[in-house]
């Protein structure tokens, strides 16, 4: 389990590690828990939570090891570059994950709606199955699943949330500049501001969801509109939450004096992630709330 590692002037190769196998057990437990829970077995939820706890423990331990190694100066610039490539492509994979859901939204709006209404070569689909259905958006489909609902509007909370996320992108950049100037006070100030903005977004989003369920009759079951709305904003909200937690970790580390103007990859990785979450939101705001 030794976290001890050796670094030459050129290459860094860590010793064996037990964190991955703990992570795998955690993933497995989470998956079995979730699957059995979904199939209405009571013990499922306990397994699921247990799995998540194992995963959190693993991340704590693994990142802890990496932070200790980083602080002790084990890493050279080559390791730093590997981390950078790793984070870049991780974010790319996330972009593609969101791409699948955006693709579903566009497909549903551009193709499925007109086809259900009989366009292209789908005349008989309309005549035989959904006679009289007029394509619209927002739509809960020809069967009107979930009943009448009130769609989201771009003004109000969503606009406020846009403002919040955009300003948080600004404050995190200011924090980065302060770090590069070696001004820790300013760094901590702007980073705290970013964390506050991040969590405010999550709170407002939760408020919006509650409102949708209780006042607008807009739920996951509200046909394709409810589906795409909640899945896209839900996954995004999850990412904002994760990002805000990561920002908090970075804040704590900044308070403990972990970063130097030259050496702060973890900080930058979190800012990249935060900007990515930001850009996804812009896409959401335009295509889900606005157009």
């Amino acid at each position: 389990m030794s976290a001890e590692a050796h670094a030459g002037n050129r290459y860094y190769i860590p010793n064996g590690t037990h964190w991955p196998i703990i992570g795998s057990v955690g993933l497995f437990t989470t998956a079995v828990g979730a699957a059995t829970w979904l199939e209405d077995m009571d013990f499922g939820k306990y397994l699921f939570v247990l799995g998540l706890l194992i995963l959190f423990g693993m991340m704590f331990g693994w990142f802890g090891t990496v932070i200790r190694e980083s602080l002790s100066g084990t890493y050279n610039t080559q390791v730093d570059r590997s981390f950078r490539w790793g984070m870049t492509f991780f974010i790319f994979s996330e972009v593609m994950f969101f791409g699948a859901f955006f693709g579903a939204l566009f497909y549903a709006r551009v193709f499925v709606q007109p086809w259900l209404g009989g366009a292209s070569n789908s005349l008989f689909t309309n005549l035989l199955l959904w006679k009289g259905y007029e394509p619209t958006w927002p739509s809960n489909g020809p069967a009107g699943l979930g009943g009448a609902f009130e769609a989201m509007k771009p003004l109000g909370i969503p606009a406020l949330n846009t403002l919040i996320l955009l300003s948080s992108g600004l404050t995190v950049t200011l924090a980065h500049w302060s770090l590069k100037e070696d001004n820790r006070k300013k760094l901590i100030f702007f980073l705290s501001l970013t964390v506050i903005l991040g969590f405010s977004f999550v709170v407002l989003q939760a408020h919006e969801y509650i409102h949708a369920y209780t006042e607008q009759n807009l739920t996951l079951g509200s046909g394709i509109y409810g589906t795409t709305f909640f899945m896209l904003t839900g996954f995004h909200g999850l990412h904002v939450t994760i990002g805000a937690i990561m920002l908090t970790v970075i804040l704590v580390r900044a308070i403990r004096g972990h970063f130097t103007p030259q050496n702060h990859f973890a900080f930058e990785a979190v800012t990249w992630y935060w900007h990515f979450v930001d850009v996804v939101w812009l896409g959401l705001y335009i295509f889900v709330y606005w157009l």
Partner: protein
Amino acid sequence: MSTVAVAHEHHAEHPRGIWRWITTTNHKDIGTLYLCFSLLMFFVGGAFAMLIRAELFTPGMQLMDPLFFNEMTTLHGLVMIFGAIMPAFVGLANWMIPMMIGAPDMALPRMNNWSFWILPFAMLLLLSTLFMPGGAPAGGWTMYPPLMLQTGIAFPFTIFAIHLMGISSVMGAINIIATILNLRAPGMSLMKMPMFVWSWLITAYLLIAVMPVLAGAVTMELMDKYFGTSFFNAAGGGDPILYQHVFWFFGHPEVYIMILPAFGIISEIIPTFSRKPLFGYSSMVYAIASIAFLSFIVWAHHMFTVGMPLAADLFFMFSTMLIAVPTGVKVFNWTATMWRGSLSFETPMLFAIAFLFLFTIGGFSGVMLALVPADWQYHQTYFVVAHFHYVLVTGAAFAIMGGVYYWLPKWTGHMYNEKLAKTHFWLTAISANVLYFPMHFLGLAGMPRRIPDYPVQFTDLNQIVSIGGFVFGASQLLFVACIILCVRGGKKAEARVWEGAHGLEWTLPSPPPYHSFTEPPAPNLIWAHPYRND
């Protein structure tokens, strides 16, 4: 402190026994784990295939009920793709890429460990469904809704297994990209990289681009089944065809994920045994890159019969046929490499030549399938099964086997038994054709795929196919025998195992040291690779 010295001191400290394999961060250990796991899964998936062929030996139902038959075709596909072929390529990448680019190890060794160790758990999730009430998933490896949504308890287990495999693949791919972009020895520019490394760089990019899309597709199914969403439900304004689009946006690049590294291996083997540099190195690189690019815009050739607008059918027909161009460039270049070479026919070369012929047959049947009006006839018949087994078994799997024989002496320090290996090759190559070639005729005559029974006029061809299948399956025991014998002993292998082999991996002793290159190799060695005359 000097890296070399430290690396050697550490050698002694490594944990022993099972704990070593569980905690290892070494690219060779992890490569070995991947390869052994893949071999195991090859036999698990193979056992399912034997059951399928046994049931299809005669018309009528004999061994199993139709549901179980469908479970077998589904699991056979999933296990072979995610358990056998993909991990085998990742294992080869782990073993060879650091040695080929003059690096000590992979760029992110701990994550490397995790990429592997997720896999056994994912397969456990998937295979455990066999023992669940309602049985394993039976909707085919493509998992189309609404059929897939009728799966019982196995459903969420299958979905989560896919998620775990996706996480594993993406992490493995990130690692490979970081290694290639960051750990190349000084002097090895991108255009001096060995072909296998190039093929993996592009494959890794494809993996990161499409595995998340598969995760998205199966997540949508999960949500539809348990949370009342309407992605694939027309009543709510969704569309089951949407799933097919999302799935094949993953699925077609996925088939290239399973063939590009094979192209890389073949591009290593053929120059070695032709004793000539690879013909047209840069055109090979551009061909792989264009195949990768095109693979993103051809996906709906799997959906010609779902009733897309004509314009879509035409677009996907032409884009698909376009892929034949860079593929043709590759086949031409391999042939030109052999032209006037001083050829010798050791087992890896036999597999490479067989690949060349048989993969090309698969490519041709692919072009036939790409023709919309023809595909309306061929779709969902055994013709498609013939096509993808030519590209995946006599293509991808042959390249893996050839690669294993090619590098086994390097890994173990022993030569394998050439006679036994050649027996394995001939039995495999002949039985594979007995197994897959008649499937073309069955498909053209109208036999549908994924069906446990058939009209009597298909009996003869099915029996030939089944016999080919049993021989093919049994022959693979020889493969295992060759590997085990080679690990245990044999003639001592030299550093440069093959007379015509060039490249950094052959400058290391066989077996290579625990940390491959603890110091970057001298730049003049880098030029000595099999692609340039200079």
